[in-house]
């Protein structure tokens, strides 16, 4: 690069040039002034809303995706358990389970009762508090 040009540019940036007597200095000043002008392009006023909408849309999709994979995981776990029980001939009498196998009915009732209580809670208590 031309050393004289470099020095001239530095002088203009520092505000020490004499554009009247120096054509190069005058040209540089015009170029500097053009370069400092902001580009005409501006984003539309709805730009921010569009970006926010895209983010919210993506978040909703991502939540749905996570829920889907959770369901897939649970189903696969159940399928794996069924296969494992079928292939290994697992019996509830194994180990400590043999002691509680006599109360099978009680456990099934307990589980069903918890499900029933949850259903009651959802149907009557939470529904009421949502209205309030």
């Amino acid at each position: 690069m031309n050393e004289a040009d470099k020095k001239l540019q530095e002088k203009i940036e520092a505000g020490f040039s004499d554009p009247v007597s120096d054509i190069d200095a005058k040209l540089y000043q015009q170029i500097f002034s053009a370069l400092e002008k902001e580009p005409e392009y501006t984003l539309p006023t709805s730009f921010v809303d569009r970006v926010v909408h895209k983010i919210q849309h993506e978040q909703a999709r991502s939540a749905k995706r996570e829920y889907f994979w959770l369901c897939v995981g649970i189903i696969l776990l159940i399928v794996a358990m069924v296969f494992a029980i079928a292939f290994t001939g697992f019996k509830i009498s194994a180990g400590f389970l043999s002691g509680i196998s006599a109360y099978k009915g009680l456990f099934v009732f307990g589980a069903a009762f918890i499900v029933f209580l949850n259903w009651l809670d959802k149907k009557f208590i939470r529904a009421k508090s949502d209205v309030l």
Partner: protein
Amino acid sequence: MTDDRALISRTLRGDMQAFTLLIRQHERLVAHMISRLVKNDEEREELCQDVFLKVYEKLAEFNFQSKLSTWIATIAYRHAINHMRKKKLLYTAIPEEESFSAHFTEDANPESLMEDRDMDTFVMKLVDLLPTNYKLVLTLYHVEGMTYEEIGSVTNMPEGTIKNYIFRARTLLKEKVKSILPKEEWL
């Protein structure tokens, strides 16, 4: 202007109002950078949107080692360059200095360049003919007022190279103006 730290922490807690404010504070910078490199209006807006989507996605990784604006400019720069490469747009890194300088200043002057008698518009048309990195460093330096160090963080180029690009680009512009415009229009 709201403090960057406060804005970021509010955004990370899910406050979209804060992110809206963050976009408004930086949309001008992103629009300037993208518009200097990409000429299609639709692509420009889409790219600007992608930049802010990326900012939102990566905001938790921002470590305050630089200004937020510098970090956002870095994302915008990478996005624009990737876009240009993908679309096979004329991405010109810096060509061989000697041959490019000669080509740039001596190239036949298309009539469209001569149409503008307004010096600013004329110079900006010449800027569009410069290699991508020249255009970008000129914008960041002259329009955004970034320091050589900040431009270095954005473009990942050494400060000396940036300084050199800026000087060379301005010299090329001056030589081109001198070779195209008749002498009486210089002053």
